[in-house]
């Protein structure tokens, strides 16, 4: 079934849905502009703006549900943005089931993370600035998902990159944070390079970048054009969603404060690539090669991220590896076409809940342990931090896919859809799930079970209510979300007007061969982790480990590869260019000047006299040349 047609909206809450973006944007502007004046209440304003944006999103959602299915794609024109020659972009918003799902996730989880940050950042002297950047992020992310054209998407795309840069580098005084921030931005710009070229190609093909016209006419374009566009957009998606080969920035991004890791580098921003691919479904459906590449990238990343997750002792980096891996699932699903879109987005939403719950839980643990991130110095925390333990635990059970929690519904759906399209992809996804069972259990057991391996000055305690309530709400989502979305095909039906649907929708099978194999593998992984990290003592210093362990600890040598392939040659090129510019270009010019002037000493005298004889020499020279030209008569 094809997606519904986009119709123009004028009134109602949807007509005012620009408020969703404007509210947090104004919040950020006030907090940045008035600076320290707002220090005392800045965090409250930031949170209020995010909540208000969430309220608008809910009202718009309700209003959207009131329309018939065929009328649920509504475009709101805002203003004439960029009329440059024949490139003309009018800015507007597209409120449809796909974008509103994202908007609810961004503002909903975003608001919870705002609230949590009130407590988490309470002792940071720059808390107000932190909230300004969070608001900026929410606004930019909403531009990304709500814009009705690719240029708007690109603006939001780079906007969230900027917010991510500001927040990873929030503690600029730490050189590692400053470096990580820059790295994230630059790697993302490599992706943006692809996205920009993709948009250029869309424009030269369709003469417009508006979704309404591009997606409706994609079928008429040549397959090779669509393949080029699809691959270029995929490069963009790889950058933003930390998929191979542009994954290297995400692990470093954990330098940012933990709420940032939860909101931006787990729940929302890093899923933008999945949004892009799903939104551009019409393009990918006409480009099977591009779709195949998308699924391969997703499958490879879901395994790579899981392997990295197995070897990290830093709790945030282990979770970051898991984020990579889970987004790999979503990208894989989005690459499957209409059969996978709804599952990709359902997993994305479920992941938004359980990953945010676990990241914020990790933050709660760090908060209690003097900002220690090494899980080898945790252990036995379940008794001192019961709420954090319970909420983190529910997130954990959800991600490894224990029935009937969220992850079981959404991940199994993806596995089933992948099996349907290609058994190879399906079994890769099953194996990934097994590894997830192991590494997530490792995180769980090293942190909350086993012996206490705390530093001598650690006095862990439960976090304040302002931090635990968001944890509780997120864990409720982790438990119920998947079932609500998948069971009965509710969500696929809801998304249908926006992304279309396959001829025969895939029903969810609670009992299937791959499903049972998955559960068995997950339990086996968890059991192995139990014997290794809960029953036996965990050394406080990491053992050297095998080659494979080192391989995983070093992020599969991704950084080493980047360094030797790009960074070092780049540095050489830069040095060479600077040398050439100083000695080569400038040297030739100066040398030439000296040669003409005879000696450099004489040159200096000529130079100082030059200003006075300026007019004279100009006119003499000109006269001589013109005279010569006239004498020759023609050219």
């Amino acid at each position, binding site marked *: 079934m094809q997606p519904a047609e986009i119709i123009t909206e004028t009134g109602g809450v949807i007509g005012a849905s620009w408020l969703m973006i404007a509210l947090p944007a104004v919040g950020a502007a006030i907090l940045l502009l008035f600076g320290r004046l707002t220090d005392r209440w800045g965090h409250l304003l930031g949170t209020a703006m995010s909540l208000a944006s969430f309220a608008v999103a809910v009202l718009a959602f309700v209003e959207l549900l009131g329309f018939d299915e065929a009328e649920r794609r509504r475009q709101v024109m805002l203003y004439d943005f960029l009329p440059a020659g024949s490139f003309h972009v009018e800015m507007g918003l597209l409120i449809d089931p796909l974008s509103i799902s994202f908007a609810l996730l961004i503002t909903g989880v975003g608001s919870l993370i705002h609230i949590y940050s009130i407590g988490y950042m309470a002792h940071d002297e720059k808390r107000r600035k932190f909230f300004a950047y969070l608001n900026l992020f929410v606004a930019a992310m909403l531009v990304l998902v709500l814009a009705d054209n690719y240029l708007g998407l690109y603006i939001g795309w780079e906007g969230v990159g900027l917010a991510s840069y500001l927040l990873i580098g929030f503690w*600029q005084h730490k050189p590692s944070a400053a470096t990580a921030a820059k790295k994230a931005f630059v790697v993302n710009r490599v992706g943006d390079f692809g996205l920009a070229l993709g948009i250029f190609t869309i424009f030269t*093909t369709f003469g417009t970048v508006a979704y309404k016209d591009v997606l409706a*006419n994609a079928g008429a374009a040549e397959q090779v054009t669509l393949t080029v566009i699809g691959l270029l957009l995929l490069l963009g998606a790889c950058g933003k969603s930390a998929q191979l080969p542009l994954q290297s920035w995400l692990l470093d991004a954990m330098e940012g404060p933990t709420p940032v890791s939860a909101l931006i580098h787990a729940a929302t921003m890093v899923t933008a690539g999945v949004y892009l691919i799903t939104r551009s479904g019409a393009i990918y459906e006409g480009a099977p090669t591009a779709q195949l590449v998308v699924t391969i990238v997703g499958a490879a990343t879901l395994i790579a991220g899981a392997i990295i997750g197995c070897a990290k002792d830093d709790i945030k980096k282990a979770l970051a590896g898991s984020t990579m891996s889970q987004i790999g699932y979503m990208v894989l699903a989005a690459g499957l076409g209409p059969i996978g879109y709804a599952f990709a987005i359902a997993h994305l939403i479920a992941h938004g809940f359980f990953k945010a719950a676990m990241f914020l839980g990790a933050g709660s643990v760090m908060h209690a342990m003097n900002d220690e991130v090494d899980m080898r110095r945790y252990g036995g925390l379940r008794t001192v931090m019961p709420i954090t333990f319970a909420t983190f635990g529910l997130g954990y059970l959800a991600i490894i896919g224990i029935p009937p929690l969220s992850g079981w519904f959404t991940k199994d759906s993806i596995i089933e859809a992948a099996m349907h399209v290609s058994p190879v992809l399906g079994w890769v996804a099953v194996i990934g799930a097994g590894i997830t069972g192991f590494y997530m259990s490792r995180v769980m057991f090293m942190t909350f079970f086993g012996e206490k391996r705390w530093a001598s000055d650690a006095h862990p305690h439960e976090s304040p209510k302002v931090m635990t309530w968001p944890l509780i709400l997120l864990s409720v989502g982790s438990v119920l979300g998947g079932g609500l979305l998948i069971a009965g095909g509710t969500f696929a039906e809801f998304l249908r007007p926006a992304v279309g649907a396959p001829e025969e929708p895939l029903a969810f099978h609670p009992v299937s061969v791959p499903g049972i194999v998955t559960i068995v593998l997950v339990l086996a992984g968890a059991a192995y982790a139990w014997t290794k990290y809960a029953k036996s003592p965990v050394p406080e210093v990491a053992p050297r480990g095998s080659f494979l362990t080192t391989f995983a600890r070093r992020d599969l040598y991704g950084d080493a590869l980047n360094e030797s392939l790009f960074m070092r040659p780049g540095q050489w090129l*830069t040095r060479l260019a600077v040398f050439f510019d100083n000695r080569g*270009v400038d040297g030739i010019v100066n040398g030439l000047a000296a040669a003409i002037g005879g000696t450099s000493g004489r040159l200096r005298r000529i130079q100082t006299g030059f200003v006075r004889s300026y007019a004279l020499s100009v006119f003499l020279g000109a006269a001589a040349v*013109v005279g010569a030209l006239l004498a020759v008569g023609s050219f």
Partner: protein
Amino acid sequence: MPWLSTLMAVPAVGAVAVAAVPKRNETLAKQLTFAVSLVVLALAAVMAAQFNPGGDRLQFTETYSWIPSFGIHFALGVDGVALVLILLSALLVPIVVLASWNEAAGTPEAPAKRSVKTYFALILVLEAMMIGVFAATDVFLFYVFFEAMLIPMYFMIGSYGGAQRSYAAVKFLLYSLLGGLLMLVAVIGLYVIAGKNTFLHTELIGAITDPGVQRWLFLGFFIAFAIKAPLVPFHTWLPDSAAQAPAGAAVLLVGVLDKVGTYGMLRFCLELFPDASRFFTPLVITLAVIGIIYGAIVAIGQTDIKRLIAYTSISHFGFIAMGVFAMTTTAGAGATLYMVNHGFATGALFLVAGFLIQRRGSQYISDYGGVQKVTPVLAGSFLFACLAGTAVPGLATFVSEFTVLIGTFQNRTYLVAAVIATFGVVLSAIYMLWLYQRVAGGPPSEGVKSLGELNGREKWVMAPLIAVILALGVYPKPLFDVINPSVTQTLSIAGVTQDPEPTLNVAVQRGAGQ
């Protein structure tokens, strides 16, 4: 009302008045300069409000006979392109005056050679000439302003600059003279060969038909412009001049003076020598793309803040030249807006770098570190300027860069050029953010710990720049409305009547479907 001559006369008279202020009374000289520059800005704003984008091509025209025996006129008039560049100049000058308040005395290592009031008088002289050069519709008059502008700038660098100011000023002058000489030859050649006994630009359009002659004359103009808005390999004077010039002078040099080069390419190269322009386009685009990438790579390797900014501008001038010669209305309009936006963005970057350098007493990046911990507002302004330099969406520079790139991509002939140029967005992130990281990131270094925060005057310098960059980033339409018709006309004179059609014409298809 003779708007344009008034716009030139006010700063010219102001300059004389400032020069007449007693030497001791520096404050009066500064205040007078600031007041005059605000009057010019107000006049320019009123004039711009009366400009009719849909009206005559040239508006506010004035023509006075100057040297009748050679058909030289004092002829003024503006189209949309010239108008926005005049607005840029009029807005930047008061900002520069305010920023230069304490700068004209020089530094302890390099005290100024001339009096403070002279510096401010020179700014006003320069302003009159900048307006003149964009308003001139007589080719000879344009040439006169083109050359005369050098003189105040020469003194601003040579007498008020850093330790190596003499070398830099002479280099600046020599390069510019070389270009000016070539252009003069071409101007005279144009006059003689056209044989119309006039230098009026409008009359000379289409006057040269012989392709060979066009090519020679094109080169005369083009090389002069390629030196002025330096394209690689004519660029090495710029880093020296920009590094040695006081920050305010650097802003006017890179932000406005160099734009005369790219403006000249659009106005004179394309309109007077259309066949030659098309003939040389592959060469120009090649130079431009080399400049974009090469300038960015060399910028990454710089150790001096102001030289780094200068090299980023060389990269940006590559974008502008590429847009001018890409021969689509999209790229042309983008390039014109790029000229304006680059003036504001680089202006912000040079000025905030100037504030840093004034405090720390060093231009070397390695002498900084941890600035954001010590002076968050100063560091925040610096970050904003760096982000404008790397064309982040929401800021004005993004609109123009994206438009230039997509417009160049539109011309299938230069697809590869556009792809390579687009890679510049990665390099610009590296040079800007690495600069910011080294200056502001990390723990505060010894010499940085005692730096003072931005004072009230300095905040007033940054505020309008930040506001303009944001406003034009969110709502660039008013400028495009003025620029579009002018660029379309220029391109149609150059023989480009329509942009390449999309391969799949959606508008047509939708029309057929309904």
